[in-house]
């Protein structure tokens, strides 16, 4: 098989093309918002948020009788509720933030599994929710990803300097009288939308990798926030495409293949940085 064929063969299948477009779009959105997740040390929050939406998805799944396309809306609703809920809980000083997030997220995750387990075919469906199934993305879902992902990117662009100031120095943001509380909640909501948009691509369990790994890779290689966002988006897109080729030829689960590729990028960047700084 020659090189051209190697690259073109998978693209004969419409589901592969749709999957790649989805993986690239989701990758870009996750990478850009992930920049803030990494810089603000919110990886655990992102992971918890992704897991917390499972009962919402499960409920939608039970009510709709297994239809996939409506699940986006259930995921979106639950994610926004959960993000603002976790945001409110973390302001409560009684218990440490990570402990209270841990309690809520494990409980909600268990509730999701319990709900899904009432259905006969639950093992298969649960797997899709947990690990994603980018190759089953419908063109309708693709539009939703495009629209909502686009909204996230536009918002990040519009509030670029506000989010940067807030993330670097919250006290400065307050003395400049920026609407700190509103901006914090907006950022949480953006992460929530991103999680909903990414659900089909990488699933609940691997979501944190898409939020954190490309952004962390870019963090190693630049000292400008804007460059970090662009680099992260490039790494995430590449990971999406390469991951799907790997998935196609090696019969690996698509979500896992994408995340593994992104992880290899990170390790390469880490090694390069270590060599370079000597």
């Amino acid at each position, binding site marked *: 098989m020659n090189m051209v064929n190697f690259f073109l063969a998978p693209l004969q299948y419409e589901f592969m093309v749709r999957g790649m477009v989805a993986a690239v779009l989701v990758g870009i959105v996750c990478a850009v918002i992930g920049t803030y997740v990494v*810089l603000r040390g919110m990886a655990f929050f992102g992971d918890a948020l992704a897991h917390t939406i499972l009962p919402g998805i499960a409920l939608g799944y039970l009510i709709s009788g297994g239809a996939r396309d409506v699940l986006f809306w259930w995921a979106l609703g639950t994610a926004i509720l959960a993000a603002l809920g976790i945001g409110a809980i973390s302001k409560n000083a009684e218990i440490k933030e990570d402990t209270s997030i841990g309690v809520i997220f494990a409980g909600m995750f268990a509730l999701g599994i319990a709900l899904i387990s009432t259905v006969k075919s639950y093992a298969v469906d649960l797997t899709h929710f947990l690990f994603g199934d980018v190759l089953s993305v419908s063109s309708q879902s693709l539009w939703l990803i495009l629209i909502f992902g686009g909204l996230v990117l536009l918002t990040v662009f*519009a*509030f*670029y*300097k*506000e989010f*940067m*100031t807030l*993330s*670097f*120095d919250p*006290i*400065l*943001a*307050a*003395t*400049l*009288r*920026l609407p700190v509380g509103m901006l914090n909640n907006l950022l949480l909501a953006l992460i929530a939308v991103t999680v909903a948009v990414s659900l089909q691509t990488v699933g609940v369990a691997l979501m944190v990798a898409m939020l954190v790994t490309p952004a962390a890779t870019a*963090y190693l290689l*630049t*000292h*400008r*926030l804007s*460059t*970090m966002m662009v680099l992260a988006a490039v790494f995430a897109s590449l990971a999406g495409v390469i991951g799907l080729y790997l998935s196609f030829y090696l019969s690996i689960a698509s979500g896992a293949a994408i995340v593994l590729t992104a992880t290899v990028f990170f390790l390469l960047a880490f090694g390069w940085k270590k060599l370079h700084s000597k």
Partner: protein
Amino acid sequence: MYPHSHHEADQPILDVVHITVRYNGRAALENVTFHLHEGERVAVVGPNGAGKSTLFKVVAGVLSPTSGEVKIFGSRPRGHVCIGYIPQRTQVDWNFPVTVADVVMMGRSAKLGPLNFPHKQDWEHVHHALATVDLSDLASRQIGQLSGGQQQRMFIARALAQEAELMLMDEPLTGLDTPSQEGILELLDRLQKERVTVMVATHDLDQAATHFDRIMLLNHRIVAFGEPDMVMQTDNLLKAYGGRLRSTADGNIVTVDDCCDDEHG
């Protein structure tokens, strides 16, 4: 009516009236009252945990006092963007992916307003501020590559770009070598010429006495506030520092609270 003489034509730049701040019932500041005039330079001195950072946050309008009132030019601080808060260097993420110019530009965020990107005049403000603190050459460096003194000057430039009229500096001299400290003190002189009012929290009693118009001796409440000669009396210092003072061989008094006291937040 008695004739009312106006010593000061304007409202004071800062007027603090009976401020009390309590955290979980413990008083960080107790009944603090004072006011500052434009262009004044004041050192705030006191032991660790005396409430210096808390005072600055209340003045900056970042923290609401439990009771009492702060007025900046006659109105509450929340409406003012003319207060520059310069954080302790240890509270900053120096690995954050921003350049020196980026950080200074952050000071323009409020003037720019939402959905606006920096205009030519904003960059002019930034470059002018960087020139004032002698950091023009390092504008495109990542902030972690700066020395301690340069980091401090970058934050002063940020407050200049913000067009701050009142600058609150939390321990700007701590941990700097002598030449860097002198650089900062020289910069304070330049700020004073531009009528910028400056409050500096410091540990160094000597510097406070030699470089500032007035000294505030703080230990939850104001122990003494006035010109250096008046404030730097042994009984005042003992009141502020308790037993944590000792005399050195050459007759100077030094504080000994800098080592093992980490009860403060």
